[in-house]
């Protein structure tokens, strides 16, 4: 059923009895698909949607271990931006930004993409010059970026300590006005609904236990609900990439799984209107439509699959928040949780064919997976459908570590927790 104010009003009159399932409930997969996407997160669902929509491949199954949208797409800080330095990155994320801008209407599902701006604070002249390099790289690639001085920052974000007495005085900032945030769960549900309506089967509670090969060619997957055959299999399982791909014979990958925590405060009337990132520590802060302040911080810093973090990062995030906004200390943290990040060794993602015929890999999203959802799905669908990467993901190769074509956005080197 098409969603609109009118359909909502009609249903309101009928006691909402007409709404149907958002995606079909399928207990059992079919025995054969053209493409199986392993992982019913944002990326997997988007991949299935674009396989159907852009490439006409509709005999597709999304196979999910638990319930869809239960991984990082449902536990992130919802920031969307394309403010990257390296052109290979910023062009990819900018394509994503364009997809975000049309997403609600494309999916006919309001993902509440809110372009309230993403502001990166600089705390020294040298840091500001670093941002100028990034901002100029964005601009020549057709991405919006603005340089703000301290007073402009102060006007934009009331409550922030911009005084000279601050431990890290604000020197200025780099603003991407088109950046912002979105309703994370809605992205998963919207893609699921879109894919489902194009004929894609979404099978929940169906853990993949192994991959089926004939020689070096993949022919399907083995699941708790039995074997399912397919011509091509794409794996998009984020923090579980090493775990799942080990079953396909990948003993090692250029990935470590780390826990990243996120935080939300009690709901408040509008207070911070922009997404603000601190430049002297790892903190980003925004306010959700429901009124909660949403904070993200640094990785806990050790390999983890536990979806739970520890107090030092909780306390450090609170310290940064209160240092930057001294009016926040009386407000209360409502909840904090952890997600498992697939940290790649250079901080950039992998969307590529694998050395095994018919098996495709989408992984290594680090902190950046949520904003990448549409572009990742779009490019992965292309890579699977055409059996070759699109120009936009041509740099996100699995073999780049061997060839030296790494994409080290931060210049931090081969230490995943530093990206």
């Amino acid at each position: 059923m098409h969603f609109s104010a009118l359909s909502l009003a009609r249903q309101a009159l009928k006691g909402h009895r007409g709404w149907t399932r958002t995606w079909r409930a399928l207990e059992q997969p079919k025995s054969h698909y053209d493409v199986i996407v392993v992982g019913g997160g944002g990326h997997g669902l988007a991949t299935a949607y674009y396989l159907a929509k852009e490439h006409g491949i509709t005999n597709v199954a999304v196979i999910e271990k638990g319930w869809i949208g239960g991984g990082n797409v449902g536990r992130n800080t919802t920031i969307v931006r394309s403010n990257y330095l390296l052109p290979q990155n910023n062009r990819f994320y900018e394509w994503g930004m364009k997809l975000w801008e049309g997403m609600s209407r494309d999916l006919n599902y309001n993902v509440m993409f809110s372009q309230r701006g993403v502001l990166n604070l600089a705390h020294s002249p040298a840091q500001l010059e670093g941002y100028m390099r990034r901002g100029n790289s964005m601009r020549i690639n057709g991405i919006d970026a603005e340089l703000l001085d301290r007073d402009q920052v102060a006007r934009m974000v009331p409550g922030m300590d911009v005084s000279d007495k601050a431990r890290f005085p604000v020197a200025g900032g780099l603003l991407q006005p088109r950046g912002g945030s979105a309703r994370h769960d809605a992205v998963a549900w919207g893609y699921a609904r879109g894919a489902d309506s194009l004929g894609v089967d979404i099978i929940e509670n169906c853990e993949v236990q192994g991959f089926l090969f004939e020689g070096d060619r993949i022919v399907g997957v083995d699941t708790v609900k039995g074997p399912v055959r397919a011509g091509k299999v794409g794996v998009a399982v984020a923090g579980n990439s090493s775990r799942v791909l080990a079953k396909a014979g990948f003993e090692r990958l250029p990935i470590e799984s780390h826990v990243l925590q996120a935080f939300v405060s009690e709901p408040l009337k509008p207070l911070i209107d922009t997404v603000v990132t601190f430049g002297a520590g790892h903190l980003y802060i925004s306010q959700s439509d429901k009124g909660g302040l949403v904070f993200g911080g640094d990785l806990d810093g050790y390999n983890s699959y536990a979806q739970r973090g520890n107090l030092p990062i909780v306390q450090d995030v609170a310290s940064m928040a209160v240092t930057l906004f001294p009016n926040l200390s009386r407000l209360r943290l409502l909840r904090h949780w952890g997600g498992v990040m697939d940290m790649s060794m250079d901080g950039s993602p992998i969307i590529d064919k694998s050395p095994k015929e018919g098996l495709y890999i989408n992984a290594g999203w680090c902190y950046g997976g949520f904003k990448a959802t549409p572009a990742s799905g779009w490019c992965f669908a292309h890579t699977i459908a055409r059996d070759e990467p699109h120009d936009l993901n041509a740099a996100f190769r699995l073999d780049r570590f061997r060839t030296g074509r790494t994409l080290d956005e931060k210049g931090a080197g081969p230490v995943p927790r530093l990206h």
Partner: protein
Amino acid sequence: MYLNCPFCGHRHLEEFTYEGDATISWPTLDSQDIGSWTDTVYQRRNPAGPHREYWQHVHGCRQFLIVERDTTTHSIHKVEVAGPWAGETAPRNTEAKQ
């Protein structure tokens, strides 16, 4: 998390930094084999479960430790000294009371 540093006793997570997979083998410097260096520098098993890994007691004795820890529960099974002092413990470190 608490790590039982063989030299300093039980100390809080805040005193340590994580230094990565301790099962990696390092080629000798005269090896120019890009494949094996790529494996060392970039490729990780990244297991869900027991993991041998380096930690440095950076705000303590600065020793590198080899810790066996479960990545799914964060429970710590073993802490040893890495490097030239492997196998050593400080004489005074009895079963410290937390």
